[in-house]
């Protein structure tokens, strides 16, 4: 009767209203899950390699980023897409910090895309949970690709003798970018090569009202990756680090490491850094430098392209590169620098067949010798040797870097080779250390406690 129809329509509308409210929140996550289910069904069917394929690729190279790696990545990917029109790549570009957040979340939820980038400290977790497979077979089948990689490019991703990542960059995470004009005006004619000279230079800069070092540690990896990985080595030497990594008896409470922490805290105490160092990130730390308000900033070689593209001309012309000087009684080499691939590509362990082959084809396009050429011309520093190198295409700063890089001795980056939980405790603790909320000894104990779990 009329009443019944009326009532059933009302009930239906009520249900539809309630269910639609719940459904709209989940549309984003269903995208990635349909991508992985599509991957499985596609892999089962036998197709010729010219059949259209779709791959999902989440990466950390936003299109408008002026970082060398981003520019090179997009150029290489466009070239690949042009040569392979049958492969559709569904990209999701994110900024570096957002990418780290997202990939960890997807990994924990077992919803990784087809192709992604892994950070050194996450490798163990990904391997434990069978999210990635070793890439040795793929590389051994393509000798040309395998040989194009630099010595030691794979180090950060070798676990139990197997290689778990294809690197695209050789980073030096520590470089001091300094404005030689500002230093000259403060009475410093050459960059100091002793620790005492370095502290003295900082005092002179402070006296002139300039921020000596602009630091943006909001993401909390900057202090550890760009400063401590090298400063620590100055005090401890690389044997200590290898002992920590292989659990052969070295401790974070060893006096050398504690002294390194103390030296870092001392820099903060004498006012070498800006007062808002924990609330701006590594992109904003360069702003003070570009404005001529800071004399130096410390970041890796990835920032060279940022300086080339973003800094005003006079700042760029006056920018020189240096390393932290040696410390008295330190066990590390004065030219040691934290270096490595740090991040590497890998594919979802559930891919197989045509999709797997296509995914590695994409990766070859963004890591091989041709990519290396594009990369170097974009002022980035690839993990492979470029086919041809036209030095005139390089910005002056990039040439200065290559000269310095030739003299550097590589030592491991902490967050590329130590586990994620340990790095988190270290990074958070460094934020406290830099504002003198914790003593070096206490921080060392905290890190050691996490290490021993």
């Amino acid at each position: 009767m009329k009443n019944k129809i009326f009532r059933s329509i009302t009930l239906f509308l009520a249900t539809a209203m309630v269910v639609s409210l719940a459904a709209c929140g989940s549309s984003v996550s269903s995208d990635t899950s349909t991508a992985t289910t599509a991957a499985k069904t596609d892999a089962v069917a036998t197709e010729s390699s010219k059949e259209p394929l779709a791959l999902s690729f989440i990466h950390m190279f936003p299109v408008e980023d002026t970082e060398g790696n981003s520019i090179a990545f997009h150029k290489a990917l466009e070239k690949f897409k042009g040569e392979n029109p049958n492969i559709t790549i569904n990209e999701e570009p994110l900024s570096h910090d957002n990418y780290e957040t997202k990939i960890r979340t997807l990994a924990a939820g077992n919803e990784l895309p087809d192709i992604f980038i892994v950070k050194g400290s996450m490798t163990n977790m990904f391997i434990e949970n069978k999210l990635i497979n070793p890439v040795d077979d793929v590389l051994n089948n393509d000798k040309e690709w395998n040989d194009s990689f630099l010595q030691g490019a794979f180090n950060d991703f070798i676990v139990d003798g197997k290689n778990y990542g294809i690197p695209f960059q050789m980073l030096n995470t520590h470089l001091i970018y300094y404005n030689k004009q500002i230093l000259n005006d403060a009475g410093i004619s050459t960059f100091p090569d002793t620790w005492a000279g370095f502290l003295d230079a900082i005092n002179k800069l402070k006296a002139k009202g300039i921020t000596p070092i602009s630091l943006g540690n909001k993401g909390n990896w900057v202090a550890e990756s760009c400063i401590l990985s090298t400063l620590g080595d100055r005090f401890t030497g690389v044997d200590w680090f290898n002992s920590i990594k292989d659990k052969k008896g070295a401790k974070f409470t060893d006096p050398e490491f504690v002294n390194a922490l103390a030296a870092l805290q001392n820099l903060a105490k004498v006012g070498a850094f800006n007062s808002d160092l924990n609330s701006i990130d590594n992109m904003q730390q360069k702003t003070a430098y570009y404005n001529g308000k800071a004399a130096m900033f410390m970041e890796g070689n990835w920032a060279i392209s940022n300086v080339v593209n973003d800094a005003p001309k006079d700042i760029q012309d006056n920018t020189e590169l240096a390393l932290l000087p040696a410390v008295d009684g330190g066990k590390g080499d004065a030219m040691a620098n934290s270096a490595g691939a740090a991040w590497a590509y890998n594919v979802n362990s559930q891919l197989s067949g045509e999709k797997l082959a296509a995914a590695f084809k994409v990766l070859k396009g963004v890591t091989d010798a041709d990519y290396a050429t594009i990369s170097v011309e974009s002022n980035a520093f690839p993990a492979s040797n470029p086919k041809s190198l036209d030095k005139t295409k390089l910005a002056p700063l990039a040439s200065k870097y290559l000269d310095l890089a030739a003299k550097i001795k590589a030592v491991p980056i902490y967050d590329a080779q130590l586990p994620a939980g340990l790095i988190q405790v270290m990074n958070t603790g460094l934020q406290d250390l830099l504002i003198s909320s914790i003593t070096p000894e206490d921080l060392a104990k905290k890190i050691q406690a996490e290490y021993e779990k």
Partner: protein
Amino acid sequence: MASKTLRPKGRVIAAYLAPGLLVYCFIVIVPLIISLIYSLYDYSGGANMKFIGLKNYSYLIKDMDFWNSFKNNLVIIFLSMIGQVGVALVITAAMISKSLKFKAMHRNIIFLPVVVSAIVVGFLWTIIYNKDFGFLNYLLKSVGLGSLIVPWLDNPKYVMISVSIPIIWQYIGFYLVIFLAAVQGISKDIYESADIDGAIGIKRSIYITIPLLSDTLKIAVMLCIAGNMKIFDHIFVMTGGGPGTSSMVMSQYAYINSFVMFKLGYGSAISIGILVLSLALILTSRKLWGGNKDEE
């Protein structure tokens, strides 16, 4: 006041409630149970799960970082009680005065921040607090109060206060709308007799409006506690728990343990901890409040 004949049968009520309850079960109850199960394991997010019983909880009780986060949540709740509920009460009292024009416009403007995403509010205030380019420091300098400038988000002593301000700012409108709705239920006769007896202005608010709102106040307090025990978005965007762990709140701590350190078992234990502590707080507040009412 529906008469008995108009009241629908029990079956019909259940049928209308069922879709909502079902969705609630799936979205709230089932994940809660799964969380409880995960918290008994050592789980890093993939296929590996190792049963360890109550070890996560025994560690949780001794974890100073967790209790520090709880303390930060309490600071936010305390500030929000005064800032959100308190200020909303004051504005409500002002809104019912006859001399206020454009009541609807005031209400809509004050409510506007509530509908803005918390992440946007967080970013907005991060920019406002920025040392060199932020609006706050610019404002202070232009009125000559430059000496009051401090690193708003960098000093652990008052980072919790800096971080609470956007939270308070965003949700005043929410409580205002609740109180305004409750005030409509107060019969006009009471106000008229109050006018005759000479209770006007502030006296009227303190002795009449607020006591009559006491039931609504209880609910507002409960919402305030529950909402602020879960607070996450603002702090994640503004400081990420920093500097160090000085602005860490419990949900942020659970997130870091789960997704940054890949300890989902422990992260789930923290979530259950948040649930237990929130229930404890709410029950305590009801006892304290309810106790007072019964004495009258």
